[in-house]
């Protein structure tokens, strides 16, 4: 469903009216809404989702040009793409190359279990990534905090992608098509950087004195 532009209050009402008018058609449906340029707060989107579910529909996905709306939708557990970013069966050649500094997002909060952050560019998190959370990035992933969830850098096939964190202890770490897990017995947490070296994922301790 693609509602018109305009004030959110009116658009909000128009969506519900449209559902009410064609209740028979929509009954039990999974709804994908394209909200264009509307920037929505979690409360507004949550309210809409509840109102839609009271009408016997499920709000499944929200498409948006606004990054903030997209993120709100992801926090509420809604899909933001109609096709999945994750490449089927591992590596797929990259069509557009990402260059350093291009198209990155900065997330300044703790990513908790169940939260999935998917972005075609680089991802920077200031906060922890808890077990059960996942980050899937086309480029690099930098975590200024503890990385304990699942992380996939270079998900579109970039073998040069890196993952670094102040405490690098992910449940699983993937770079491009390579998969690694954290060793069971680790010493004291310290900043590490993981990348592909000779076809394997290796983690190197950040050493200010070295090199």
């Amino acid at each position, binding site marked *: 469903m693609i509602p018109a532009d305009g004030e959110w209050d009116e658009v909000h009402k128009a969506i519900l009216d449209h559902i009410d008018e064609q209740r028979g058609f929509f009954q039990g449906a999974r709804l994908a809404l394209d909200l264009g340029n509307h920037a929505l*707060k*979690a*409360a507004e989107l949550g309210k809409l989702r509840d109102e839609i*579910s009271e009408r016997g529909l499920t709000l499944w996905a929200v498409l948006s040009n606004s990054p903030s709306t997209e993120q709100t939708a992801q926090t509420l*557990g809604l899909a933001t793409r109609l096709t999945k970013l994750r490449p089927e069966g591992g590596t797929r050649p990259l069509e557009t190359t990402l260059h350093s500094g291009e198209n990155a997002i900065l997330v300044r909060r*703790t*990513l*908790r*279990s169940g939260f999935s952050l998917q972005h075609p560019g680089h991802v920077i998190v200031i906060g922890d990534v808890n*077990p059960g959370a996942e980050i899937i990035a086309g480029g690099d992933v930098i975590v200024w905090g503890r990385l304990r969830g699942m992380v996939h850098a270079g998900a579109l096939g970039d073998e040069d992608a890196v993952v670094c964190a102040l405490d690098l202890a992910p449940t699983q770490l993937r770079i491009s098509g390579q998969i690694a897990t954290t060793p069971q017995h680790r010493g004291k947490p310290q900043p590490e950087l993981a990348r592909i070296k000779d076809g394997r994922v290796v983690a190197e301790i950040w050493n200010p004195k070295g090199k």
Partner: protein
Amino acid sequence: MPGKVVTITSGKGGVGKTTATANIGAALASYSQKVVCVDADIGLRNLDVVLGLENRIVYDLVDVVEGRCRLRQAMIRDKHLGDLFLIPAAQTRDKSAVSPSDMVRLCDELRPDYDWILIDSPAGIERGFRNAIAPADIVLVVTNPEVSAVRDADRIIGLIEAEEKGPARLVINRLKPEMVRRGDMLSAEDVLDLLAVELIGLIPEDEHVVMSTNQGTPIVLNGKSKAGQAFRDIARRLQGEQVPFPPLEDQNSIFKRVSRLFRAGGN
């Protein structure tokens, strides 16, 4: 002052949401607060059993929402505490019988006349959870010191933040100080380290809880129980009091008892 709505939730089942709701409710009522406990676990109701009020149910939450009775008719007064009421869940329906806006309306109707409205949330993150969370002013997340329960608590805390109901406050239930000391159980610090939310209650494992639950008498009415004391502390913290957390080591170990005897003898 209008009443506050406190939702008690957890994600994982069986960590003690219902026990916590019953006991925090009873503790608040014992401090002369007017309290209503609402069982939002429609289809799997338990709160009435824990409070020992099962045989007094005539109307339930769904009857109120669907207009078959007035709100006051569904409220059951507790056997022990005159200021404690229960609105039971329906057993023969499911979560979809109530919507989040129904819960908001219900709580708005209760707010002027009661100090505290406690909502016992069902396990899970679906409709039932959203119903329970919709009217909340304060959310308490109950967890056990186990990896699986902590993982679910983390997810729930994230959802609460997403619904802009946060920050949630944490109740760690069934902590065994002896096991923590041996390094066989996550400590309160380990749990807080991961979840990074404010702690409001630390409930030690206590056999009295099972006994009191089976008898339908809240443990807070048992002055000797440590768990009862911990629930009373939560009630005081909810009312804005600063209550220190008691030391966590196992004070019942023989060594401690002996050393205390010696100290008492020396003085």
